[in-house]
């Protein structure tokens, strides 16, 4: 139950950060991505500040035996580069660059400017649904061996 309270506050802070930094505005995001246009470096400072705070907080958290309200930390531990990581990131980047919206701002915009993001969010949900129709990847060890044989 207490986890729910902290998740709510965390979501609130996240949304506030997106609104205050104006990252909820696709035009602001596109102005960063448009290096050849009237370039707006704001997004780099948003990301830089967020990364710096998380870098310090993550190091502090890793000195704890466990999270305050959960039995253990759930942190991704994969270190391999597979085609899904690269291909997925390319597709995501193309979609992001096409509109200037990624999942956080798109969802936060549902209460800020619903009419301008409704279609995008609906399509995003459909995209997530399409992903789940894909066959699940082979177990990690077999996959690492196979990609080693094909790619390297």
């Amino acid at each position, binding site marked *: 139950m207490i986890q729910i309270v902290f998740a709510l506050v965390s979501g609130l802070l996240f949304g506030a950060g997106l609104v205050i930094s104006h990252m909820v505005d696709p035009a602001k995001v596109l102005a960063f991505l448009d290096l050849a246009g009237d370039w707006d470096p704001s997004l780099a400072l948003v990301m830089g500040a967020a990364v710096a705070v998380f870098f310090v907080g993550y190091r502090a958290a890793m000195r704890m035996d466990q999270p305050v309200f959960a039995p253990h930390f759930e942190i991704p531990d994969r270190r391999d580069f597979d085609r899904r*990581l690269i291909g997925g990131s390319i597709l995501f980047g193309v979609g992001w660059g096409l509109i200037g919206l990624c999942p956080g701002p798109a969802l936060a915009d549902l209460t800020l400017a619903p009419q301008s993001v409704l279609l995008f969010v609906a399509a995003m949900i459909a995209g997530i649904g399409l992903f789940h129709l894909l066959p699940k990847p082979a177990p990690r060890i077999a996959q690492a061996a196979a990609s080693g044989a094909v790619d390297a």
Partner: protein
Amino acid sequence: MEQFTPLSALIGGALIGLSAVMLLVFNGRIAGISGIFDGALRLHTRGLGWRLAFLAGLFAAAPLLALIGNDLPNVSSGASTWAMIAGGLLVGFGSRLGSGCTSGHGVCGIGRASPRSLVATATFMAAAIVTVFVSRHLLGA
């Protein structure tokens, strides 16, 4: 560079970082929006409550800021219906296939120096920059 807003960018970014630290320290979770949203959509029996609570907070942020007197930013998009559909599909599908988006890979992953997230972030940044260049300067959309 007339639209450059360094102060609000730094404050907003620090809040996003703080949000991710909170979720990690208290709940042991990474604040990756695409993953949280996906889990909530699939109605995960385990962890559905905190995911919905996080999303509720995300939705409540703009109305609450307006309530305490903050000016809310304009949200402007000149994208066509088809671009919106294509963009949404690509963002939804791509972020799940690549196991993360700007928050999970870009903020949390880079903050913990994950090699996968560094590669993912460099890849989607490059793809987005190329897409904007092609759509704005080559096709003139």
